[in-house]
């Protein structure tokens, strides 16, 4: 395997068709959309709160609302973005509603969105390596949660700048600068782990 991405090879046309089938009332399409995205939505939602039953309720409400209003939905070629946005709005709304009642918490939503930076690499770790990781981790921890969220939405979920901007309720340029700044921050440490990169390069080049 060479340049393959993650296992879900979802192309634009099949996303569009699946959504259309759902709009036309196909239960199979509904089940398929749920199957593809329920877990991802749950993971995303749980980054906002530890209240897992709230997240589950929000997911259920989200789909129920889609079922209810499907004829009025517009076509789309990114179901992921559509669902993520609806979920985020739903969760934020629920969390804020909860706060007004208790009136104890005064700060804004303290979300998780902690990033791990060494997901796919399985190389031997020495002291130098460990220190590097700690340095990157401490830099990442200093980023506000909204920036961490943007980084994950961009580099893990694969959303576009415009989509991230829509999700966060900001402009495309702001979303872009959030990502650019994160790249600059992390990028400085990139060239340090030269061993890993060379091993990786060989690993990836050989199939060709």
């Amino acid at each position: 395997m060479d340049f393959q991405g993650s296992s879900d090879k979802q192309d634009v046309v099949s996303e569009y068709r699946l959504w259309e089938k759902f709009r036309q009332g196909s239960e199979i399409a509904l089940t398929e959309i749920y199957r593809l995205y329920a877990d991802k939505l749950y993971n995303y939602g749980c980054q906002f709160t530890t209240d897992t039953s709230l997240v589950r309720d929000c997911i259920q409400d989200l789909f129920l609302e889609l079922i209810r209003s499907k004829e009025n939905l517009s076509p789309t070629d990114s179901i992921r973005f559509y669902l993520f946005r609806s979920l985020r709005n739903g969760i934020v709304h629920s969390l804020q509603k909860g706060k007004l009642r208790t009136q104890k918490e005064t700060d804004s939503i303290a979300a998780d969105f902690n990033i791990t930076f060494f997901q796919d690499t399985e190389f031997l770790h020495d002291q130098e390596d460990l220190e590097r990781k700690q340095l990157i981790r401490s830099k990442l921890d200093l980023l506000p949660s909204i920036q961490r969220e943007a980084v994950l939405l961009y580099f893990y979920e694969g959303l576009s700048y415009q989509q991230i901007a829509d999700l966060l309720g900001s402009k495309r340029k702001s979303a872009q600068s959030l990502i650019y700044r994160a790249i600059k921050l992390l990028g400085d440490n990139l060239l340090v782990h030269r061993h890993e990169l060379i091993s990786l390069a060989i690993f990836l080049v050989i199939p060709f």
Partner: protein
Amino acid sequence: MHYDQYKVNDFLEDQYFVQWVIRPDGTSDLFWRNWLKQHPDKRLVVEEAIAFIRSIGYAHTHHLEKAEYTQILNRLQEAHRHRHKAGSRFAPFIYSGIAACVLLLLMVLIFRYDGQVPDEKISLKTVSTENGQKKTIDLPDGSQVILNSGSVLRFPEEFEKGQREVELKGEAFFRVSKDPERPFVIHSGELTTRVLGTSFNIRSYADDEKILVSVATGRVRIEDHQGHIETLLPSDMGVFHKSEMAIEKLKCDVDALTDWTRGILIFKDESLPEIFDRLEKWYGVKIKIEGKVDLEGKYSGRYDRKPLDRVLEGISYTSQFNYKVLNKTVTIYEK
């Protein structure tokens, strides 16, 4: 700045590149692989960028428990079925279809008679098939139509002097009798097909993204609402893309495409959800998915006038599901 001047950071900032790494699709894959072949010197830079992208993930991942997953799914399916009681699926577009068709014929009449009020009422006939049904229809001019499952054909009791017009929703195979004085016109959604005397297949289901016209004999002209025209000859296929509103012309195996008229069901590299959808139409059953089932994989197969049970048996054998058939309902569940 061109890609060949990009450094690692530039690739990381490029959303098209990042989306290709995370989720390659036909178009982006073709582009990037080609580009890399032409710029082997950029290989290391690209690999560094890919490694960076692949390193980023959630520090804490959460997964739905199977029971939780299924509980929500059941509630959703229940709500969905509640909203879609008994055959209301076709109701929305039949309504709009009748309006469009009558309007069309009315317009044609008005133009021909130059403003004179027509003294005859147009009487339209509608023939429709349920899922699992096929019908052969004889038209007033001697033309023959084989209507596939889940389709509707509308045509006048007597054809006009200048044109023979019908409206199709779904799929049908037409054998049009030759009449040079009267072109045969089929309206199927956004596409109009015009013929003189030929045999061809039109596939225009509401929930498909494409409308397909394939020609067996003769010559056919297709036209969309924006005035794009394509002329099709035998073994040509015209593809109208609804999302892009464009017409494409391809070569095709007409015999394979019209196998359905002979009772042959063929799957070519299709996903399970797509196959279930086609089986619903072909056999006139409802397919329900119960709980969390692995529906990955693509399947191919050929079934010559086989019952549903045999088809399901064939597919489930090499896949991860089990099934139960009760009357007109098929339940798919985990193996």
